[in-house]
Structures are given as structure tokens and as C-alpha cells.
């Protein structure tokens, strides 16, 4: 990763133009060429330095529903419960965290009703209380990562 890669990461987390030649327009601001910018983005995607390049959608505004949920999983049942939880395709990602609430996962469904239904089913399936942490307000989610 060189200086140009870093500038692409730092300056192109948003604002990619909606224009006829957007790479050329973005490249001009970055002090490089259209073809070089395309090559750099492709290489960083291939290398895994970038997860994605394109529009980032706002699930709720698209009509979907998301929530963060947590479980207090007894240590001896951790792997079993992990498999139960992960088996639902609505569980988008799941992290182990150091706390009595040791399993934290994000549910993504097409409607808010389906979200409630999933919480009920996961509670039933695991026999554990599902702590639901729906987003009540979202504060500035910035173009934060700097390299």
C-alpha cells in the first residue's frame, strides 16, 4: 500500500460522483488518472484491503429491519448455541464478546414484524432470553477510518 492507495482509502469513502466519467472526475481530485484509479481499486479489492466499492445502502430506508441482539450463553453451551443462532439466515453476523452477555448478533429481516418473530424463535430454540437492542437513534456515522 503506497501513498496513493492511502489517499484513495481516506478520501474516497464517500462522494464518488454520479457523472458520465466518475473515475476520471474522482481521479482528478486525487491527482491521478482514471485508469490508475480503476486499477488501484481493483487491486485493493483483490487484496482484501477493501471489502467493497460502490453504493452503501441504508437498510431501514429501503424498508428492511435490523437489530442488534445479545444472549448470555452458559460457557458449556457456547458452541451449541452458536450453531443454533448461526443456522438462521436472518442472522447476518455474530460476535463473541467478553461479557456475561457473550454473544452479540445482528438480525436483518425484510419487515419489522419478521424481526420480532425471529427474536421469539431464537429465544425458543436456545431456551435463553434474547436481549433486543434496536437502534433508537443513529449519530454521525463518519468516513472515519484513516490510514
Amino acid at each position, binding site marked *: 500500500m503506497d501513498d496513493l492507495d492511502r489517499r484513495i482509502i481516506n478520501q474516497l469513502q464517500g462522494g464518488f460522483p454520479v457523472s458520465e466519467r466518475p*473515475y476520471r472526475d474522482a481521479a482528478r481530485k486525487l491527482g491521478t488518472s482514471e485508469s490508475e484509479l480503476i486499477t488501484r481499486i481493483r487491486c485493493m479489492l483483490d487484496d482484501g*484491503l477493501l471489502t467493497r466499492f460502490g453504493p452503501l445502502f441504508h437498510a431501514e430506508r429501503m424498508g428492511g429491519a435490523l437489530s442488534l441482539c445479545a444472549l448470555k450463553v452458559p460457557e458449556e453451551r457456547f458452541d451449541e448455541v452458536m450453531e443454533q443462532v448461526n443456522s438462521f439466515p436472518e442472522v447476518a453476523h455474530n460476535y463473541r*464478546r*467478553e461479557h456475561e452477555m457473550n454473544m452479540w448478533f445482528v438480525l*436483518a429481516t425484510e419487515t419489522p414484524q419478521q424481526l420480532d418473530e425471529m427474536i421469539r424463535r431464537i429465544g425458543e430454540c436456545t431456551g435463553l432470553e434474547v436481549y433486543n437492542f434496536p437502534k433508537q437513534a443513529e449519530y454521525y*456515522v463518519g468516513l472515519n477510518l484513516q490510514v
Partner: protein
Amino acid sequence: MSEAAPEKIANEALPDIDRRLVLATQAGLPLHARPWHWLAAELGVEPGLVMARIQAMLDDGRIRRIGVLPNHYRLGYVANGMSVWDVPDDRIAEVGEQVGRLHSVSHCYQRPRHLPDWPYNLFAMVHGHDRQEVMHEVETIAGLLGDLARSHDVLFSTRILKKTGLRIGG
């Protein structure tokens, strides 16, 4: 909870062209010199319509932004702590904005308390090269919140149990 969050998106309410554009770009934007024109050809519509619809989705917030999504982990930000804070409800909007603007914070939300187990209502995801750096950033947040933070905790992630890609209902 990165912004890479897989999102399953309902689409019945969306105009058909918007839905098709979401589906066509969910894996990413074409790396062609004229990506919007390329999409238009794929979908059999005019480039002007594609650019107008994308701009409309940006304007109404259905698209948060268009750009690169860096992989925190691959860029060396391997430590991730979910910092959680108990702050007064009537001050949370003001301090939430401030915390969200810190470079180390990728997401900042108000979420419900679950008393008595869980007194925290402000969640700020903090990234760092190691735990020490995350804790240093948490101290910065603590300084910013001052007496408004009645208590806090940091939940480090120790294992990714599942992470799926972007997924949009077709």
C-alpha cells in the same frame, strides 16, 4: 457491526428501476470508465435515468454514500471494542454526535437499556491496532462525556462467529 453489515432489503415498496439498480450494484460498482452507462446497458434503460435514480436514492438517504469500504482488519485495525455508556436521555443526542465524530468510532447509536442488567444507552464501536489503543480511545470518549457518563464498559470481540456478505432480497 461494520458498515459492511449484510442488509436484507425489502423491495416491494421500491420503484422497479430502483430495485433493479440495488440488485445490480449490491456486489459493487462496475470498474469500467462509465460505470453508470454500463449499468444502464445491463438494465436496458437510459444512462440519464440510472444517474437520476442513483442521485434520488442518495438525496433521500436510501444510499448512505458511494465509495470504498475499507476492511478494518486487513488495514491493521484488529482490535474492536464495543464501548457502552450510561448517559442521560435528554443529553444523548448532543454527546452522541460528538462521540460519532471521533476517527476511531465507526458506529454510534442510542439503544435501549435493559435494567437492571444493562444500564447503557449509548453504543460506540471503537477500532484500534491493539487493545491498548482502543482503551486509549475509550479514555478520550470518557473525557468528552465527563460527568454525563454515569458508568461505562468495553466489550472486546474475541471471535467472529458469523459474517455474511451483503444480501438483498430479489
